[in-house]
């Protein structure tokens, strides 16, 4: 199962994968134990002529044991996940001062990327708008100001382990730091209309030098 996960290219992605692996092994063990027990019971206690079932109404001890054991496991899993969750989504725990800031706006059926330009302020003359192409440098903190123009879309980069819905008239801060250069797909993950399938942008992760060159080309001064 695990080998089907797409390659991870974000700093927080490894943490997500680690939790995924932990849950995978816990659930795998539970599954094998429960199914194994079930199959053994089905064979061992199948109806046989002349054999009667044993009258057992239950066991308070067992009820307490499996209630407590399950509680401890799920409680532990939740505690383990809080730091990871906050690191990805909680604006208070983001790395401050991004290297790159981009506004990404979903609209039927494209991703509009707006770069603030040299003044680092959106809504000014030097803004650059690109359709479906997002360019960022590798190993740099990127902040995305995510919004939508019409309906709900969802910004999804499988390799970043990142998904965030984009809502009209709401600006949600999203961050990531890519660790590998390349071109990755940005599908829309929330049903957004008849063009939902195929709503697709690209995340271009450049080396710092390539990114600088790209910036220079766009804003020559």
């Amino acid at each position: 199962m695990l080998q089907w996960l797409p390659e991870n290219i974000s700093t927080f992605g490894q943490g997500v994968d680690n939790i995924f692996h932990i849950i995978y092994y816990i659930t795998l063990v539970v599954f094998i134990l429960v199914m194994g027990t079930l199959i053994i019971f089905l064979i061992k206690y199948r109806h046989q002529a002349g054999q009667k079932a044993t009258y057992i109404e239950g066991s308070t001890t067992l009820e307490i044991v499996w209630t407590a054991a399950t509680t401890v496991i799920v409680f532990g899993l939740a505690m383990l996940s809080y730091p990871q969750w906050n690191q990805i989504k909680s604006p208070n725990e983001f790395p401050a001062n991004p290297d790159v800031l981009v506004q990404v706006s979903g609209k039927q059926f494209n991703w509009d990327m707006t770069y603030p330009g040299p003044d680092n302020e959106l809504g000014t003359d030097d803004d650059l708008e690109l359709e479906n192409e997002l360019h960022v440098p590798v190993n740099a903190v990127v902040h995305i100001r995510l919004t939508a123009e019409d309906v709900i879309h969802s910004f999804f980069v499988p390799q970043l382990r990142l998904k965030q819905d984009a809502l009209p008239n709401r600006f949600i801060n999203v961050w990531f730091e890519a660790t590998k250069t390349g071109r990755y797909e940005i599908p829309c993950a929330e049903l957004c209309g008849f063009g939902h399938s195929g709503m697709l942008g690209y995340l271009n992760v450049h080396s710092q030098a390539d990114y600088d060159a790209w910036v220079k080309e766009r804003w020559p001064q």
Partner: protein
Amino acid sequence: MHDNEHASHHHEESFISKYIFSLDHKTIGKQFLIYGLIMFFVGGGLALLFRWQLAYPERPVPIIGASEKYMEEGEVTTGADKMWERIYETDEEEWLEVNMPNGVIEPAFYNMLFTMHATIMVFFVVVPILVGAFGNFLIPLMIGTRDMAFPILNMLSFWLAVLAAIIMAIGFFVPGGHAAAGWTGYAPLSADPQWTGVDWGQNLWAISLLIQGFSSLVGSINYITTIINMRAPGMTLFRMPLVIWSLFIVAILLLLAFPVLSSALALLIFDRLAGTTFFTATAEGGGDPLLWQHLFWFFGHPEVYVLILPGMGIASELIPVFSRKPIFGYRSMVYAMIAIAFLGWIVWGHHMFQSGMQPTLGSAFMMTTMLIAVPSAIKTFNWLGTMYKGSIQFTSPMLHSIAFVSMFVIGGLSGIYMANAPVDGFIHDTYYIVAHIHYVVFGGSLFAIFGGIIFWFPKMYGRHMNDVLNKIHFWLTFVAFNCTFFPMHILGVGGHMRRISNPMQYEFLQGFQGMNIFITMSAFTLGAAQLILVFNFFWSMSRGKVAEKNPWHVNTLEWEAPTPVPHGNFVGPVPTVYRGPYEYSVPGEESDWIPQVQPEHAPATGGD
């Protein structure tokens, strides 16, 4: 006693009052069952259509699709080509021409197909069968009374459901097509026709669900009143069979949850028809798309437990009967169901982890959601405990119950992944979710439904279903089900989004196409296998082996009633209950079962 007085009302009834506008809970239960089975085929057929598109994107569906030659060169070679030729010759835009020209499923039609598949399966199949059919048929019989508390309301509940189904069906044929915003109907997509092109389809969807809500509401009031007030003498709450407990808890959930959906639907209709903006955010102000999600899931999560709790109840009846043993930990089974129902109210936010909801709120919902694993585990272990040292008979109902438990284990374990907010960030809105819901609702609820139908069929129709057909149906369904839905976990782990009509548009998904084809093949097998069940069901009604009064040797009260069950259920006074429902293989007893009506002659063993 009013019982005797009631029993004497055995006047002849006309065909209409006996079979159509019947007030008898058993007839209404059977009506709901047949209603659910018919809708099961509609919902399943829609799924097969969109599965075709996922396996073979942009290719015409079999049988009615045009040939390649016709599509490329316009040359008519097959019967289907002739049909398309005729359709294109007419001036008006025909339904097929709009939705699937040449038999190729259009993206908008695709959205409509999966929207309506889920809507029908959830609201028109699983709830009507589990709650409407089993609830109506079993509650009075199993608690030992002659009918529901409010028979007229009961009839109303069924006919409102029929009205809702008719309105839902009309939606397929209105201009603009049926609702296509997902069964969850997320606003603003659902709130304004300009985003989907769907006009009256979405309105009818909302109106139909409003009416279905009334039907459920009326039914649940009836169930709650009946269970609280009309139990037979000696039938204390803790002597009730677990399926009655599950239906009682579900009725309370429906009573409290459905009005929330109804309000949300009413607001949605205002948004669409009266120009309000409850669910749309504009620069000038207005409402909030997240409001819809909160309202929908505040209803939706308890609704999910409405879909599974009666399945758990049915399995809890069948497993003791065919293990010839008492249910393991009766009381903890009851408390676990109450715990699941309670937790169901405080977990709705886990559907919204990635919605833009405050992340801290997500943390809280992660914890409450994780906790649901606890009562679910209790139930699973208790079913295993019931089989421990039993004398297990592999009858068809038992096979379905075992499948229920195993599939519920998979569905429960996969739920832990998405309960975990950071992991959900990856698998949310992927096929992982689709796999999970189907393991719970198909693998869980439907296997329980199949088991329950076979088990209670003799009491419903006085005959047995054909056992060979039942076994074939079971094995085909079990294998095809797992081949259909298990690979979806893998698709989800690969990041395959749900609700996309053409996975080939994405580079990172192209490697999964073989798996998509395999899933579609399995889905068609799964669909075909259900024909066996339906044939068997209707054939056995008149041709099945005649059943005796209590063929499975069961303790509960419904088997005390004669077969077929007469109007008024019990001959003479209603039975008196002396013991719990699961007294199987009691030591020192000759028979391995002791009906609930048998007076105590030994120290108390079961129940309260």
